[in-house]
């Protein structure tokens, strides 16, 4: 088991904890927290997926590397994958927005029904 497998396992365990919370908790706020755990696990998983052993951050800030980049000769595996990092950068912001939206629904539900227990909200059941 190398270190990368450890990263994947940690991220997936975090996601699994989130799923467990989503399924077994009945308090709406705890379910929102579980959702953010799944979110964070997915972010960690994506970043770990783009990691290459021995590579640096995808920022070309020394002159030797700039010369390589100018002649399109960046060594394979010199920097980690910038695509997944860009994905995660945007996914974090979307996660914040979606969490805020979920929490505002929770506020409205509490104002309307006076409870946060999802088992007592039976209107949507069939």
């Amino acid at each position: 088991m190398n270190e990368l497998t450890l990263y994947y396992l940690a991220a997936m365990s975090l996601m699994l904890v989130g799923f467990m919370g989503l399924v077994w908790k009945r308090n709406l706020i705890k379910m929102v927290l579980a959702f953010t755990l799944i979110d964070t696990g997915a972010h960690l998983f994506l970043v770990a997926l783009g990691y290459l052993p021995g590579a640096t951050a995808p920022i070309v800030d020394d002159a030797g590397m700039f010369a390589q980049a100018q002649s399109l000769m960046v060594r394979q595996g010199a920097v980690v994958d910038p695509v997944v990092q860009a994905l995660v950068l945007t996914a974090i912001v979307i996660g914040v927005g979606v969490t805020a939206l979920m929490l505002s629904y929770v506020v409205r539900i509490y104002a309307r029904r006076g409870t946060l227990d999802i088992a007592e909200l039976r209107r949507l059941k069939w």
Partner: protein
Amino acid sequence: MKQLIGSVFVLVMGLFLWSLVPLLGPSAGYLSTYFTQHGVADNHTANLVTAVVVNYRGFDTLGEVLVLFASVSGATFVLRRRDGLPTAQPWPASEFLATGARALFAPLVVFGAYIFVHGHLTPGGGFQGGAVVASAVLMLLLVNRDRHLPHGLMTWLESLSGFGFVLTGLIGLAVGGSFLSNKGLMPLGEWNTLFSGGLIPIIYVLVGIKVGAELSALLDVMFHSTGDADHQEGQA
């Protein structure tokens, strides 16, 4: 029965996630290889992530800004009606919080602006800088709960920066042949200096202003969502 279904779901999910692990390994796809090879030569940006976010996948970033806008609008819409919410009597802010927030507000705004201006050089950018600016606004609201942000100013900042983003993209379409194209319009500048990267710093500053205004508006809505007695009387 419900517990059983839940347990089975978690078990299946766990097995699915764990079975993925042996299939994964370090690999560089075609696109990421292209981006790392051509990113600096195409855009003269030091930060390759910024080149991907703002230039190569800039259209996706526009969609992502739209998602943020939609979620903030949704939260505002849901929290706008105040009837039924418990009336909150917040504690007054302590002396430490009040003094600290007043001292830190201006430096935090400047720091946020620094982060989104240097998005093409350092690991920063519009989203991070906007979040830092919003945290400054959060401290302001924590100290004075009755304060309302200037609604008109926030709307204008948000609309104009969003409009600027789309306009920059359309100018790129007219001049360089593709949406948000970085060719031909502005000189790319010298690598690793503040004025480099062509259109990229301009777009990231616009994104920073937009994200800062949106998150601040969200905080404003959430802070004033508790029902206050005189407001409800006014509605009734």
